[in-house]
């Protein structure tokens, strides 16, 4: 356990040292500041579009941090040959995978929490909070989302270069976010074997869209029922476990 946290600790130090996080933070503050300061025809209390932009930025920036940190861990270790002293510690390969995952998670959660806190402060400045429980669900879903993206990027990183990994992760994020409803419609409209194949594909793909509460938070819809929160949490843990197990299997077979 100590070894895993040592790896994770190293990644948090990297987050503090690198400029990525600060650039995104300043960018977010500037954009939200400008949007909040805008007035339209002397109408008071327009806040939804600030919430919309704010929540989207929180999710996108956390995703960027999560993917870029998780994607480079193993390829960089292999490229710079620092993987050898790590393996010689001796650290088992699953510990390295788990350590990298925990590190990416820690980095993502820290940055997400800071981004979310800024979002909440702009939210409250724009008017009263309509649903605390929905904001709580937004936070939980954000962390689950980063858990999923970190596991996904770690899985890809054991057999892909960093550039390919980041590109593929972004593609998945955009395609699944944008076309999941179309995939569902195709499944419902198709019949027989095609429908079954699409159904299998639907279950295999990572459902990043489950974690997106932008419409609910922006437009103050009702919070989700508890069973959905629990189900999404279970789904995330199972999916992450499967991704990390697969990553471990592939990594074990790798010869250095």
């Amino acid at each position: 356990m100590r070894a895993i946290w040592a790896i994770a600790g190293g990644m948090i130090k990297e987050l503090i040292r690198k400029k990525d996080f600060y650039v995104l933070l300043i960018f977010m503050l500037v954009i939200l500041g400008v949007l909040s300061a805008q007035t339209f025809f002397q109408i008071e209390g327009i806040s939804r579009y600030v919430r919309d932009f704010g929540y989207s930025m929180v999710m996108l920036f956390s995703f960027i941090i999560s993917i870029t940190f998780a994607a480079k861990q193993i390829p960089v270790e292999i490229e710079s040959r620092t993987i050898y002293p790590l393996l010689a510690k001796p650290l088992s390969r699953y510990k390295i995978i788990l350590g990298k995952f925990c590190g990416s998670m820690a980095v993502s959660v820290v940055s997400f929490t800071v981004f979310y806190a800024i979002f909440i402060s702009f939210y409250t400045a724009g008017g009263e909070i309509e649903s605390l429980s929905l904001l709580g669900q937004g936070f939980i879903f954000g962390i689950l989302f980063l858990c999923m993206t970190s596991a996904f990027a770690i899985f890809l990183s054991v057999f892909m270069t960093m550039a390919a990994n980041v590109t593929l992760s972004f593609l998945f994020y955009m395609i699944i976010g944008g076309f999941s409803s179309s995939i569902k419609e195709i499944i419902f409209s198709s019949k027989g074997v095609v429908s079954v194949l699409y159904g299998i594909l639907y279950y295999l793909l990572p459902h990043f869209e489950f974690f997106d509460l932008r419409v609910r938070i922006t437009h103050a819809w009702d919070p989700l029922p508890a069973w959905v929160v629990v189900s999404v949490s279970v789904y995330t843990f199972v999916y992450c476990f499967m991704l990390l197990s697969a990553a471990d299997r592939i990594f074990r077979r790798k010869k250095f």
Partner: protein
Amino acid sequence: MKKNNIALTFVCLAAIVLMSMKIDLYNCVYAEAQPVNDVPVFLRFLGEGRSIISSMSILQADLYWHGGVGHFFEEHQGVGVAGVGEDCEACKHSDKHSRPEVSPFNILFRISQEIDVTEHIHLQDSQIKEIVPWLYYAAEIDPGNIQAYTLTGFYLADRLGKVSQGIAFLKEGLRKNPDSWEINAEIGRIYFQRLKDHEQAVRFLSEAWNLMQKVPHDKFQERFVLSFLVYSYEGMGQEKKALPFYEYLNKLFPNDVFDKKIKRFSPLK
């Protein structure tokens, strides 16, 4: 051979010079037709992409109007449109989209269905202001987007009670699009309906009617302009001027109301 090459080079150069003159002429005509002085420098780089972004901004306003939920056109069939001060019960049709039946064991589909918001609602009262930023940005990004001006004018004047701001914004739109009958008609309508200023209404609606003749339009658009114009003439006590328009309207949409008006005002001829 050498002479041939020189001749070929000369012909190519001449063609380039002639083509460049043509291209320059085209650019000058295009630039005159599309003044960009009012567009911020950074937006000019977007070129024609501005109109796409502007249209997307209007679609975003529509999405906000429906509480962030996309809808199908058919869902609006048979739904009344409530005006200011009217009870908006007709708009409260919170039917759910038809959801396909999903087996209780198909857990991912069930989660997805539960997370997606599908209720069909319209913003009410004070919430309507939330669409204003998108309409404003649509007009700012592409000053040639007339729909952005007319929609903003409508919501400001009719739904948010900001009549003077609505008119000012429409006049700004008119300054940027002097040939727009739609903006003239919208200003005229607001003067007639909201301010009861019949003189101003006639001024803008007459201009709208004149501009309309220069562009393709349909009879419903004609009815929109002329019905406000005739009522404005009546409001000013100039029924004689309203009469030819009543006759024209009766030709387009024959009905008893126009018939009665024509009979009443005919002796004034």
